[in-house]
């Protein structure tokens, strides 16, 4: 028996290997990225195909193809990625699988790194498939293995739904053997299953509905739902909330029954036993009241007088993430124990300067937005997208961020409404290749007069620098075709396509001016390697310094680079140790007061 100190996502990756999966696909997204990242370097050793797919729909479809040959596969994404993959996901439940197929989607309560906090358990309900809700890294690994087996037993995909605090938790995890034997893949032709024509889909829907009983039977006898009967007051909690509740009950030292749920649908037998035992129950779960609605339904059959507390009664919030303090006070209020007040810092915290995440010193994105602002002015409209560059929101050149790829399409819609101001949207390279392509095609086809800035830093930076089709490298580090964004933009119908180096400030401003004046669709590709990757590659530029010409005009300070500070004492700017030598501030300075540090 071996224990390792594993990140939840690494534990899930380990589970995928122990299950003997042959194909693993995914698109980067916090908090799910480390699953594929952990597997990629091991792919050759264990003969697994591991890929960063172009987007989540593609990832799931590649996984489905592999599953239909009898190979175990996993498709990995963040919660909003499942929206992109929803089309294949829903019909996959009809066709079913051959090799076990586990869809892993990591939810992000509190939106730590996301645009919403949707609850993926609803997706499993929607598609009528089983969902596993792990509480910690150990359970995440063990459930991954189980999910593959269940998927094959039911011939259905299974959804594994960790949350940020499971994916990005670390714990001592007991690991098992890695399975290296797998069946020879063979696609068996079977049109009535794999061809979802209406005539085939109708009976497959019936099959799916008939399978619901088998799902319940399998989950009922699974080890993921734990019942502890004590007093007549009870807690039902799902996933990590179960751990918060258990900790709270121990702290309160109270005689409270608990049912810790790890599967959806929840087990009818255990739930009805529990609900008959207690007269008051609090349902503790993050996000949507999925379990709570279930408990209300079961109570109508088994205990009409049951007093159910939860989100409906305001005891548990429906937004944000929970913790043991929230669980403790919710339970305490049920059993009439005193609530514990959280210490508050009050005024002390008010003196602290905010520390929002920001673009790195020397980041090329900052220079692009500076140029866009100069060329388009404040009054133009700036739809944007999802990536590091969204952190530039304070620069005034980011007016929208909705979902992956929505910059070009929103810009088009704003133009088609009759809005007459200039429009310049921005999108990163990885996001452009993810879902920006149809937007550009649509803009060209429907003749949207907009400017599209493609911020090409040759990586998927925000999620941890994963490669993409434009980089010429695969997830596993192999060389591959590097797709040209210039050629793509032209092929999709853009006539004005120019590439600039954002570190050349004047040339970039001038190019954006021409793009603005172009009577049609214009695309400007601003290409500059991510400064983090540049540093990792050992590329060093000479840093810059402020000389005696500085008048204290603050033009460079307002540029917002963390390497530029303003010293009130001397009423002048100062460049600190963070300078990466991009030289943009030296070009911005109206007084030639910033120069490169000379060799000593």
């Amino acid at each position, binding site marked *: 028996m071996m*224990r390792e100190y594993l990140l939840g996502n690494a534990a899930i990756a380990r589970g995928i290997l122990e299950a003997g999966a042959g194909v693993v696909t995914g698109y980067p997204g916090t908090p799910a990225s480390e699953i594929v990242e952990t597997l990629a370097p091991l792919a050759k050793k264990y003969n697994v195909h591991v890929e960063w797919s172009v987007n989540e729909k593609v990832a799931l479809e590649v996984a489905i193809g592999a599953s239909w040959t009898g190979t175990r596969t996993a498709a990995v994404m963040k919660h909003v990625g499942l929206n992109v993959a929803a089309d294949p996901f829903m019909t996959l439940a009809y066709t079913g699988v051959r090799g076990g197929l586990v869809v892993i989607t990591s939810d992000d309560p509190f939106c730590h790194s996301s645009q919403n906090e949707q609850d993926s358990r609803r997706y499993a309900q929607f598609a009528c498939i089983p969902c596993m809700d792990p509480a910690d890294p150990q359970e995440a690994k063990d459930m991954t293995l189980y999910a593959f087996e269940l998927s094959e037993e039911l011939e259905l995909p299974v959804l594994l739904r960790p949350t940020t605090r499971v994916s990005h938790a670390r714990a001592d995890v007991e690991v098992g053997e890695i399975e290296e034997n797998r069946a020879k893949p063979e696609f068996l032709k079977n049109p009535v299953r794999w061809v979802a024509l209406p005539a085939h889909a109708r009976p497959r829907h019936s099959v799916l509905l008939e399978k619901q009983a088998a799902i319940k039977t399998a989950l009922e006898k699974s080890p993921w739902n734990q019942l502890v009967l004590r007093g007549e007051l009870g807690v039902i909690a799902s996933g990590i909330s179960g*751990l918060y509740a258990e900790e709270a009950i121990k*702290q309160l030292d109270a005689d409270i029954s608990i049912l810790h749920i790890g599967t959806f649908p929840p087990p009818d037998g255990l739930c009805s036993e529990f609900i008959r035992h207690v007269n008051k129950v609090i349902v503790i779960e993050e996000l949507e009241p999925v379990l709570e609605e279930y408990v209300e339904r079961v109570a109508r059959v088994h205990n009409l007088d049951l007093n159910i507390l939860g989100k409906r009664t305001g005891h548990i919030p429906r937004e944000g993430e929970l913790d043991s303090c929230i669980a403790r006070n919710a339970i305490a209020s049920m059993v009439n124990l005193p609530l514990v007040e959280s210490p508050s810092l009050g005024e002390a915290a008010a*003196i602290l300067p905010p520390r929002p995440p920001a673009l790195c010193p020397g980041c090329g994105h900052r220079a692009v937005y500076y140029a866009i602002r100069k060329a388009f002015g404040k009054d133009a409209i700036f739809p944007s997208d999802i990536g590091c560059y969204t952190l530039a929101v304070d620069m005034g050149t980011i007016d929208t961020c909705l979902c992956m790829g929505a910059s070009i399409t929103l810009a088009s819609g704003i133009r088609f409404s009759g809005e007459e101001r200039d429009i310049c949207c921005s999108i990163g390279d990885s996001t452009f290749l993810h879902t920006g392509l149809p937007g550009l095609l649509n803009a060209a086809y429907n003749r949207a007069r907009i400017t599209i800035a493609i911020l090409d830093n040759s990586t998927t930076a925000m999620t941890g620098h994963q490669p993409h089709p434009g980089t010429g490298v695969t997830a596993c580090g192999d060389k591959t075709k590097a797709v040209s964004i210039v050629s793509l933009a032209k092929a999709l119908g853009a006539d004005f396509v120019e590439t600039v180096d954002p570190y050349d400030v004047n040339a970039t401003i001038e190019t954006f001016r021409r793009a603005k004046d172009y009577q049609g669709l214009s695309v400007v590709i601003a290409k500059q390697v991510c400064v983090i990757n540049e540093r990792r590659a050992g590329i060093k530029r000479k840093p810059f310094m402020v000389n005696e010409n500085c008048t204290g005009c603050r033009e460079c300070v307002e540029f917002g680079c963390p390497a530029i500070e303003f010293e009130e004492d001397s009423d002048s700017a100062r460049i600190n140790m963070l300078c990466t030598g991009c030289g943009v501030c030296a070009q911005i300075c109206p007084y030639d007061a910033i120069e490169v540090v000379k060799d000593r």
Partner: protein
Amino acid sequence: MKTSECDIVVVGVGGQGVIMLTSIIGKAALKAGIPVRSAETHGMAQRGGSVINHLRIGCVFGPKVPIGGADILLALEPAEALRNAHYLSKDGIALVNINPVLPCTVTTGQSRYPPLEEILDPLERICKEIKTVDATKLAVKAGNSQMMNVVMLGVLSKYIPLREEMLIESLSESVPAKFLEVNRRAFELGKSEMQEDRYAMRQKNESLKFQ
């Protein structure tokens, strides 16, 4: 009833090595056969934002340290210490590196970074004990300012229920061999900065029993 042997909250700024520091302690706990849970900050906040890691030694529950429950607040940056002081228990100890990292809101002149005493005074009122360390200076003395987090690990080593050998072993496995010596030096400098007699703490360590 106590639900964790030792709850630590490690705070700092993206890039200071909060995750690595927490991971070294976690691996040391694994070596000692003690159950350990931690929660990390990944993603967006790592771009120069506030980073907070939770670490629970001798715990089998959720990975987040309850608010008002931390035995130790280990701060690699002073403003972040105060920002997260509500995690400290009344009996808790704050270990603070006194070197500020100015956020972009300060460098661009939108906000002011308070003087150190304005940060430390309220912190002192909240917890039982506060120790300040010029960890960056000690890291430079050890040979590399980047090792500031390892200096703080040395500082922390006096206060946690893990044997020093375990921490050193875990540290050795976590850093490239060519940097091991300077890392060990950084650890020792941090450790010697704390004057307290370790004997009492040692005995407590020996008596720890899990499972």
